[in-house]
């Protein structure tokens, strides 16, 4: 039986930011991979290099060293073009800011798919409406300015926009951080539904270990640009090896740690 190729492989990725004579290594030789249908959580405190890592994967930043393979193909600067872009979509931290303020909900959701010309003009509208319904938004909101929607509605719209491109990998960069707890639960619920129904692969970036454990199969803990621990969610939560992971877990309420592996809570 041929060996299954991971959907995303990151090898020895490095990024250093320079400001005058000062240098700051944001990402320091990190490697990980994500299988198709899997959800990897990249966890760590603010400034540990999580967002820099995903920005490099999403072609928003150029790496200094290292390689990124998507679906077995190496993503060099030249390859980071439309064919890969369609299959790799991103959901951002601040849902309202991720939409052009002039767009309505429908226009905002159609944005990516329109650009990739996935659908014919007439089909695109119908597909966007269907997707808006799928993520749980009412049809009456279609012509509302997208930024006038609530945070949760906006994040659902951002997920619908990404889904309309039929991606293989969805990167969620602190996608739940700006939302209140009940809305966070709704978004996580939606993501778990996507994982189950569409076998969606997720790269879930968060500083919230407890929340990540409710959706992630694997967790990688980052500290000062390095991955200090990587393993299955259960392994990392119940048998953390690295002192930093242990410290992170201590900051999460004991009751929460016990309940987070019970995924039925959401």
């Amino acid at each position, binding site marked *: 039986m041929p060996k299954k190729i991971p959907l995303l492989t990151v090898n020895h990725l490095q990024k250093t930011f320079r400001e005058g004579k000062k240098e700051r290594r944001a990402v320091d030789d990190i490697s990980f991979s994500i299988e198709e249908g899997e959800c990897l959580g990249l966890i760590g405190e603010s400034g540990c290099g999580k967002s820099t890592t995903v920005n490099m994967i999403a072609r928003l930043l150029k790496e200094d060293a290292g390689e990124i393979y998507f679906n077995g193909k190496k993503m060099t600067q030249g390859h980071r073009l439309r064919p890969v872009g369609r299959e790799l*979509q991103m959901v951002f931290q601040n849902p309202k800011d991720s939409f052009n303020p002039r767009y309505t909900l429908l226009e905002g959701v159609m*944005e*990516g798919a329109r650009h990739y010309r996935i659908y014919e003009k007439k089909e695109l509208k119908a597909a966007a409406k269907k997707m808006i319904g799928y993520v749980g938004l009412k049809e009456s909101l279609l012509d509302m300015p997208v930024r006038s929607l609530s945070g949760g509605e906006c994040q659902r719209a951002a997920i619908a926009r990404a889904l309309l491109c039929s991606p293989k990998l969805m990167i969620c960069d602190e996608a739940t951080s700006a939302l209140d707890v009940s809305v966070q639960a709704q978004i996580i619920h939606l993501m778990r539904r996507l994982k189950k129904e569409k076998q969606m692969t997720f790269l879930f970036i968060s500083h919230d270990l407890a929340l990540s454990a409710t959706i992630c199969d694997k967790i990688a803990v980052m500290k000062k640009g390095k991955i200090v621990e990587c393993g299955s969610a259960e392994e990392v939560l119940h048998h953390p090896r690295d002192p930093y992971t242990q410290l992170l877990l201590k900051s999460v309420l004991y009751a929460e740690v016990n309940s987070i592996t019970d995924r039925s809570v959401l």
Partner: protein
Amino acid sequence: MKKSHKKKIPKSFLILCILIVLLLGTAIFAPLLAPHDPNKTELSLSLLKPCKEYPLGCDAMGRCMLSRILYGARVSIFSSLAIVFIVSFIGTLIGVFSGYFGGITDKILSKCISIMQAFPKMILAIAIAGVMGIGIENTIFALCIVEWAEYARLSRSLTMGIRNQTFIKAARVCGESHFSIIIRQIIPNVIPTLIVNASLGIASMIMEVAALSYLGLGVRSPMAEWGAMMNAGRNYLQTDTRLVIIPGAAIFLTAVIFNLFGDKLRDVLDGRV
């Protein structure tokens, strides 16, 4: 239920729109509205006071003042509109490219903008128009050269504010090219502010065209233009102030209408963005 996002357009804005249409209509249909030939001299009618046949009287050369004001509106308003259109187009392009790409492109372009803004605008415009000679096209060219930097600076700073917003990142993840991002994401978001700035700029441009004409660098005689009419009337300031006040009032009223229009337009567009 969510409230509709559409706001009512204020009445005052509609009134100003009507006044602008009237002004432009007057300028366009000047040949139909003018009671006399604006360039026909009749020395026997020199400095004629307002009467039934000549509602605003005649100038020193015996030309109908009303006809000259109506024809002058064409030059004053349309040359100002042309300048504002050209400088806002060029300035926006330069500013958006400079602000969006940053780096060396921005360094070079922003230095050019700073150099242009370091010159006193009117003195430079006088120098350029003076070197190029009398003529409305030279006036337009001179004012375009000195005015584009202001629009470039504004659009540059607006673009820099938008460039780092998440929706630009999202557009890049969605595979949009730089060109597409500029056209579809940046320009629609900077345009409302630039339109307001341009509409406010029309008033000052009318006055700058008039000022150059007043200095004798605008239109060629005998073409009617409000600034040039004031210049012709200044010799009679002591005896017949009407020759200066009438074109002056035309400039003042037009400038006020465009200024108020720009102000209201800002309110209307701000409410919508």
